[in-house]
């Protein structure tokens, strides 16, 4: 109880005084997760749309695999990425291990299945609604995809938010591939793990509150943006 309280107090002071270390870590968290979100969305959303409109032989298998990969253990992803990027690994020459880029790669792998699965569900429903009309209008595959993505953009935002939440709260994979190096790859979650390990619960809690506050404000900001865009539509 005392820990929780002093954590709150410390978090408050860290935030209001713009503690430089905290700001640096928080900004790095945001940057890594937003980059991962951007890359993952660029992969997952078109993939989800193609899965919705195209009938090919392995479609069901791909969907099943995507759904299964949603529950992928991040530690395993971290391990695989680590092996690939390590100096003796196939991508070792790139020298990416223990850099923010490696963390982005791991997060992308973790959230692509999540975003694609959620997006696919809403795109599939929308496609059922649009199917007859778009077929009748002879639109190209590409036009089907862009039409669906545009008209389902609200639901896609929700999918993206889920991905962002998973990315920014993730610790296992980025700890392995990032190494939690001070001033280089330390982010909120890995810092929390470190401080907890050191027994500095107050600081760990402070970081935790900042993390939660960040996640909530990003979510609110995006929802607010999407509401103003569609003002008075439904």
């Amino acid at each position, binding site marked *: 109880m005392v820990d929780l309280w002093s954590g709150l107090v410390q978090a408050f002071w860290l935030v209001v005084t713009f503690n430089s270390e905290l700001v640096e870590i928080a900004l790095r968290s945001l940057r890594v997760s937003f980059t991962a979100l951007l890359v993952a969305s660029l992969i997952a959303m078109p993939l989800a749309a193609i899965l919705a409109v195209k009938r090919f032989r392995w479609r069901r298998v791909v969907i099943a695999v995507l759904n299964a990969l949603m529950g992928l253990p991040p530690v395993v992803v971290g391990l695989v990425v680590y092996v690939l990027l390590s100096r003796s690994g196939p991508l070792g020459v790139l020298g990416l291990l223990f850099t923010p880029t490696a963390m982005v790669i791991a997060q992308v792998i973790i959230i692509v299945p999540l975003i694609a699965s959620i997006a696919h569900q809403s795109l599939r429903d929308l496609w059922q609604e*649009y199917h*007859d*009309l778009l077929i009748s209008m002879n*639109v*190209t595959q590409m036009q089907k995809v862009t*039409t669906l993505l545009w008209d389902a953009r609200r639901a896609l935002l929700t999918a993206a938010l889920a991905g962002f939440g998973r990315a920014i709260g993730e610790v296992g994979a980025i700890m392995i591939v990032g190494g939690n190096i001070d001033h280089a790859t330390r982010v909120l979650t890995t810092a929390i793990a470190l401080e907890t390990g050191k027994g500095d619960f107050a600081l760990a809690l402070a970081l935790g509150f900042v993390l939660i506050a960040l996640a909530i404000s990003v979510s609110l900001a995006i929802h607010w943006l999407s509401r103003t865009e569609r003002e008075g*539509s439904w």
Partner: protein
Amino acid sequence: MSALFPVVLDSAETARRGQVLAGPVNLTLDGQGICVVLGPNGAGKTSLLRLMHGAARLTAGSIRWSCPTPQARRAQAFVFQRPVMLRRTVLENLAYPLRIRGVRRREAMQRAADWAGRVGLGGMLDRQAPVLSGGEQQKLALARALIAEPALLFLDEPCASLDGRAMREIEEILLAARAAGTSLILSTHDMGQARRLADEVVFMLHGKVHEAGPAHDFFNQTATPEARAFLHGDIVE
């Protein structure tokens, strides 16, 4: 005018999971004016229209247009019994067929606004299409089908949820389209509408074409007792 016609259906049939929805149909249409497809519920009117348009799979027989089928498909539009609304504004719905054909945004929007006015939706350009009333959606669907100037327009019960005035407006638009050289194939339950619009009649029963011919003949000297019963508003078995 339209290089699509005549179209010849030769034992054409559409089935789904082994159950025949319509067919086998033998029919030749020359696309002069308005062809009205009549018949009781479940007779296969929707299925026949979809089959001809290519929206339902041809499972037996053949359909031959006077030009290659892909070209014929591109020259057609379809207004569904249950209108499909894109989750966009009225204006964007109308502009959509033009935009996918590569018309520039400005011009597409201008023509969309023009068509919205013609079907009486001029006051609600920025409203989201899915919140329109049933009748307004039907008008929007009609305008969206006509905006790309198809050579042939299919309409599946275009006036099913319209009041008398809206129906008259729609019929005027359809007659104007016919005057401009568009061929129309429409299904309806409304005998009054059939009499007002039809140049040709196709009477369907149990998935097959029961009787087909010029509207004048059909309404004045019906050949079969079933069609006569239908015209008198009796229940057709």
